[in-house]
């Protein structure tokens, strides 16, 4: 209660609120905060769970190739069903910590579904090459979408967005010749779609969805620039960054502001180096990048005041 307590004392001293109101606010906030001991227990629980999963993974990996395909399918299937069932039980718990566990378990279930279909496709149906990716990504997306519709948590939306990327890229990978050089542009478009859907309230939690979209917007043009060996994706990235900065003020969304600023910091120096490294030399290009980034930083600081508001 450190800062709030001090503020309340000041407000009471200024006769803005009464002693009773101060005590009522402190009592309310204490009740709303989770106990530190339960948080520590939750963190230790996840740590222990993660170690157990890693140990199980190492154990299985050692004997994996010796197992028949049916045994592999049974093992992954049982684990996946266990994750799904435990998640169903956990999400109805009154405890927030247990509900968060449900989110984690269902995230693992999506990974389990992907693994199960990978073994089914390669081990039983003898699917080879890029067609295998469709056998993995389509079920993963369907399950991730279903689980997200039931539980709109951070890990569920991350699974949906990740599976959406995988399914679109898998579909494009079926083309011959595979347009893999353009995958970065596709990643960018899915990122933009994520941001739009988060803005529309379709993709939730909103903050996480903005974050996932912005990561794709940052990565996509960078990947496209490298794979296509052209600079126009950097301009696309910078243009998107500008759009995010403008939108952040309109939406008063700090995540979008940070994403837009991050995008400027990623794309602007790359553009300056692309166009001026040979003519001006590295030191001047570096100096120019620094000056422009300082200007952007000042602009972002001003925008932050607009976003956070009075």
């Amino acid at each position, binding site marked *: 209660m450190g800062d709030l307590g001090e503020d309340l004392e000041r407000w009471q001293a200024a006769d803005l609120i009464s002693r009773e109101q101060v005590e009522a606010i402190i009592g309310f906030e204490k009740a709303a905060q989770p106990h530190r001991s339960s948080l520590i227990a939750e963190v230790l629980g996840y740590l222990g769970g993660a170690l157990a999963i890693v140990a199980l993974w190492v154990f299985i990996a050692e004997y994996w190739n010796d197992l028949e395909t049916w045994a592999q399918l049974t093992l992954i299937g049982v684990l996946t069903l266990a994750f799904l069932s435990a998640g169903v039980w956990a999400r109805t718990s009154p405890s927030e910590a247990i509900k968060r566990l449900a989110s984690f378990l269902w995230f693992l279930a999506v990974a389990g579904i992907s693994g199960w279909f990978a073994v089914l496709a390669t081990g039983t149906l003898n699917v080879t090459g890029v067609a295998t990716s469709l056998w993995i990504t389509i079920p993963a997306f369907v399950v991730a979408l279903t689980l997200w519709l039931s539980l709109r948590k951070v890990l569920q939306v991350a699974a949906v967005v990740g599976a959406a990327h995988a399914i*679109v890229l898998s579909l*494009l990978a079926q*083309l011959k*010749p595979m*347009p893999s*050089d*353009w995958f970065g*542009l*596709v990643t*960018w*478009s*899915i990122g*933009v*779609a994520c941001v*739009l*859907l988060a*803005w*529309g*309230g*379709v993709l939730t939690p909103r903050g996480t969805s903005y974050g996932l979209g912005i990561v794709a917007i940052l990565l996509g043009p960078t990947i496209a620039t490298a794979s*296509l*060996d052209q600079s126009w994706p950097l301009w696309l990235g910078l243009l998107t960054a500008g759009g995010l900065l403008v939108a952040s003020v309109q939406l008063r969304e700090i995540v979008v502001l940070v994403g837009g600023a991050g995008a400027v910091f990623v794309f602007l120096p790359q553009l300056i180096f692309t166009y001026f490294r040979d003519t001006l030399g590295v030191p001047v290009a570096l100096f120019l990048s620094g000056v422009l980034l300082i200007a952007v930083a000042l602009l972002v600081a001003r925008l932050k005041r607009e976003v956070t508001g009075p």
Partner: protein
Amino acid sequence: MKRAVVAVSASVVVIIAVLVVVLVFGVIPLPDYPSLADHPDASIPGSVAFITEGDPPCLGVVSASGGPSTELRCGVVEMGTLGWTSDGLIITIDFSSSTPLYLLVDPASGEIVDTVPADVNEPKPLVWESQSTRADGAVLLTDGARGTTTVKVRLPNQDPVPILTADGPHDYSFTTATWSPDGQWVLVVDSEGRILVVGENGTPTARVLVQSASPWMNATWYIPGYPGVDLGG
């Protein structure tokens, strides 16, 4: 609700627009060549040995004039180690034993008719230098820059002259080019693993001899009466 509809519509438009761009500009068809397998050309002499892509890779042979190819052996062929002896046996290297061995393979039966110990550390290269330079000094060069790939012939003291040019996806290229033993033909392997045959000056134009060779393993040509690789054993 209205905002959600706008968001979904805008998302669909963005993704579809990008997919259209990718389909229009990103899926560039591979260059197509007539097939010697379907339409053999009796004027092309000799036989071509090659290595197929796969696990394990296999040694194959085909008449240079075209027609179906024959798979000879699998699993004992290594990258960059393929040649012919003067008397028409295919040479490859077996690295599976402690001492690498040159295997001399009968192109008719696929049987190993002889073995020659190879140098343990650096087995002699069988193909590259000798078959990219013709007796008159003409050198074959492969070149490629974003979507256009070329095979050129450079005669001594002259500028290179292109004999084969193709447009395709930016990662499409001609990976190797070697002379036929008589110097009248050029054997070209492309990044799709197709073995092409083209005349020494570009005419007749390129035709596909084999569809599924390994793009990064060599193919090599034999014409009776022309010298082959001397293993010195």
